[in-house]
């Protein structure tokens, strides 16, 4: 097979960070080439340079033997390179069709609305990525938005595909469809660069894997000749425990009691009468397919959405009508699922992000005056103990890699020593090392007798951490099963709304 894209000694430095350090990569025609690496290893930086979004400081990129010097994505698109970005590059105010054709609109002057929508409809059928071309992107769920991103690349008929964590936000079914599409493209000879943190996906779909660590490419291996364990070790540079060990422990008094809760968003009832409790020293996992009301339920518990009826009781006090601030100060911490929209102020420094919830209180402030020293000391302590990289407390949150952004949120929420931590999708988009770290922290809270409500779309995560598992379907709690005994099949059935037979 001939070499399609060749990268030699590519280097890129950001203020204070060597993001890519003499990176080498060789993409052959018709192969799916996975790039693995910890959060912040430099994967996105590498592909952004290929796509013309960043200019390398040194080194070369060549396509079919010809050296490329892109100063903007325009040239990359013209050269036939297509990229799905890790963070959405969508315009919420425009429709699906407008987003997809933007920049490559057919015709000269007039925007052909009807025709474009029809083309997109066909395209989405062809790739089994069903979508309504006339819908406004801002109204779509994140999963559907991801589809729009993927369709954008297909629409441009790219000859080389770069997918930067395309599966992070997809449901297992959608991942399956995407993998099939990738395999079909491979048959057509289109090479694909595939970035993912999910070792099983990488193992399944890729031909070769290049592993990056701290800005360097450390190895390229053939997928068939390696194991997930070996890949994980290469990535992190030490032994990684892929299995969580969870000591047995008896739960204490209830911390959170949810009673017959109904939550509506607009006219639709998203949560329809849910009751459960989370106790001291336990992790309660809430499993379910995206869009079945789990996140509305969380919003009602944290106070972001009002409850239509029912009660939320926290340590014996009815907090159904309390505002977010009251709930927070009462001892509820929250890791929101969308870290960009709800978890961080992206243009603030880490110091400020670390005290977002407590900036108005001692020791961070007194008489309305902020205490910089206390805030900075706090930031130093957190970024040290949670291993936030780069270790610079005045860095802007936006410039951190996804995993490190998540660590900042985790550090803030856990350091408040909450009685209850609500974690919505806490490990989405994170590398195995970071996932392990976050799981350890959740288990540490549990060991300290705190309550944890874990909401995740990943069954593996739910099953390995939870003491009890609640399954939500269509706004109703289908069942609560003991963590150790629930099987993947049982949970899968419950998640799709099939009631289990009562066992003896």
């Amino acid at each position, binding site marked *: 097979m001939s070499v399609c894209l060749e990268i030699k000694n590519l280097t890129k430095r950001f203020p204070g960070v060597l993001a890519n350090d003499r990176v080498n990569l060789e993409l052959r025609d018709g192969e799916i080439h996975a790039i693995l690496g910890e959060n912040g290893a430099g994967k996105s930086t590498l592909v952004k340079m290929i*796509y013309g*979004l*960043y*200019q390398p400081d040194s080194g070369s990129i060549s396509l079919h033997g010809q050296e490329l010097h892109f*100063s*903007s*994505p*325009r040239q990359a*698109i*013209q050269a036939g390179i297509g*990229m799905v*970005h890790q963070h*959405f*590059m*969508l*315009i*919420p*105010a*425009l429709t699906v069709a*407008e*987003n997809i054709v*933007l*920049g*490559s*609109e057919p*015709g*000269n*002057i*007039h*925007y052909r*609305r009807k025709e474009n929508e029809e083309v997109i409809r066909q395209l989405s059928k062809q790739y089994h990525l069903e979508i309504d071309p006339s819908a406004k992107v801002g109204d779509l769920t994140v999963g559907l938005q991801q589809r729009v991103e993927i369709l*954008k690349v297909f629409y441009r008929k790219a000859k080389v595909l770069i997918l930067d964590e395309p599966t992070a936000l997809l449901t297992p079914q959608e991942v399956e469809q995407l993998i099939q599409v990738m395999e079909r493209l491979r048959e057509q000879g289109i090479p694909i660069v595939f970035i993912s943190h999910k070792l099983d996906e990488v193992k399944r779909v890729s031909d070769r894997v290049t592993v990056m660590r701290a800005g360097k490419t450390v190895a390229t291996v053939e997928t068939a000749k390696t194991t997930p364990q070996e890949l994980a070790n290469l990535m992190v540079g030490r032994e990684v425990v892929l299995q969580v060990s969870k000591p047995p422990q008896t739960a204490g008094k209830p911390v959170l009691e949810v009673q017959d809760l109904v939550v509506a968003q607009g006219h639709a009832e998203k949560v329809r009468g849910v009751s459960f409790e989370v106790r001291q020293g336990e992790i309660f996992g809430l499993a379910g397919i995206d869009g079945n009301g789990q996140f509305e339920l969380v919003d009602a518990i944290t106070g972001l959405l009002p409850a239509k009826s029912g009660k939320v009781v926290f340590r014996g006090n009815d907090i159904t009508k309390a505002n977010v601030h009251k709930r927070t100060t009462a001892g509820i911490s929250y890791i929101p699922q969308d870290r960009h929209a709800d978890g961080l102020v992206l243009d603030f420094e880490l110091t400020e992000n670390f005290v977002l919830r407590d900036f108005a209180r001692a020791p961070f402030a007194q008489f309305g005056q902020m205490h910089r020293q206390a805030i900075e000391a706090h930031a130093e302590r957190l970024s040290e103990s949670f291993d936030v990289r780069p270790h610079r407390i005045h860095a802007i949150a936006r410039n951190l890699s996804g995993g490190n952004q998540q660590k900042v949120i985790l550090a803030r929420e856990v350091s408040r020593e909450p009685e209850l931590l609500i974690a919505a999708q806490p490990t989405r988009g994170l590398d195995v090392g970071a996932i392990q770290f976050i799981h350890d922290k959740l288990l540490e809270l549990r060991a300290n007798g705190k309550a944890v409500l874990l909401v995740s779309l990943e069954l593996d995560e739910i099953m390995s951490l939870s003491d009890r598992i609640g399954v939500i379907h269509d706004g109703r709690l289908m069942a609560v099963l003991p963590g150790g005994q629930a099987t993947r099949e049982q949970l899968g059935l419950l998640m799709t709304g099939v009631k289990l037979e009562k066992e003896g």
Partner: protein
Amino acid sequence: MFWHILAQPELWAATLAMATPLALPALGGTFSERSGVVNIAMEGIMLIGAFFGVYAACLTHSAWLGMLGGIIMGAVMSLIFAWVTVSIGADQVVVGMGVNIFAAGLTTFLLNMIFGYGGTPTSTPHLPNIHIPGLSQVPFIGPVLGQQNVVVYIMLLAVIASHYFLFHTNLGLRLRAVGENPQAADTAGINVWNMRYLGVIIGGMLSSLGGVYLSLGLLNSFEPNMSSGRGYIALAAMIFGKWTPFGSLGAALLFGFSTALSMYLQGTGNISTNIIQMLPYALTILALVGLVGRSTEPAADGIPYEPNK
């Protein structure tokens, strides 16, 4: 008695005439802000258009060439504004304010230097009123729509053309995309800066035409600060009109109506004209508070874009 006033075609003709120097800069602002550049420089650019319109008309003895000169100078001023705000990334509001102060000073200075203290000559050619043959004979409609200044018709055409451009052309789609999310537009292969220059310059041409209308259409002379805050009212009209051409026109008509009404009532002396002149501003505040629904400004309005960061 009120209904009697509303039945006067002159009132509506005046409404249209007074709305024109608001609608044009409002339209100009819409172009600029749709591309993501906050533009409060309409006031200054109107003055530039008004002055250089008269100056070019005097030099060439043609009102048409005067209009062209005014528009060109408005475009040049906008080009400078675009260079500083888009390429250099300076604060758009501060630079806009600077343009306004600079333009007021420059035009007054040039007026005195070129034309002396007597002001611009009374022989300055005038942009003609147009009589539309069939239309001007129709009762009521005729006096309102059939015999306005040529710029009024240009304004109406510009509103329609702008709507078509912004919402029904590929280029318009790109321009709006850049104002909503420049990075997304960049990754789609669109040159963000070019689009922003385009938005600002078209906007400047429309605003300066508003100024030309004041000096060559309504008055045929230039006086210092003759835009008298219209650029700012146009800003309100643009927001009121939710950054759309027809919305801007509608808001400009509302403001134009109250100006026309107060001129009309000045003679009768029944109602304090101060109250009537206050009306559009009160309406604007109510509108912005949420009576006409939330205004949705372009998401990236006012944020400079630096590619390759």
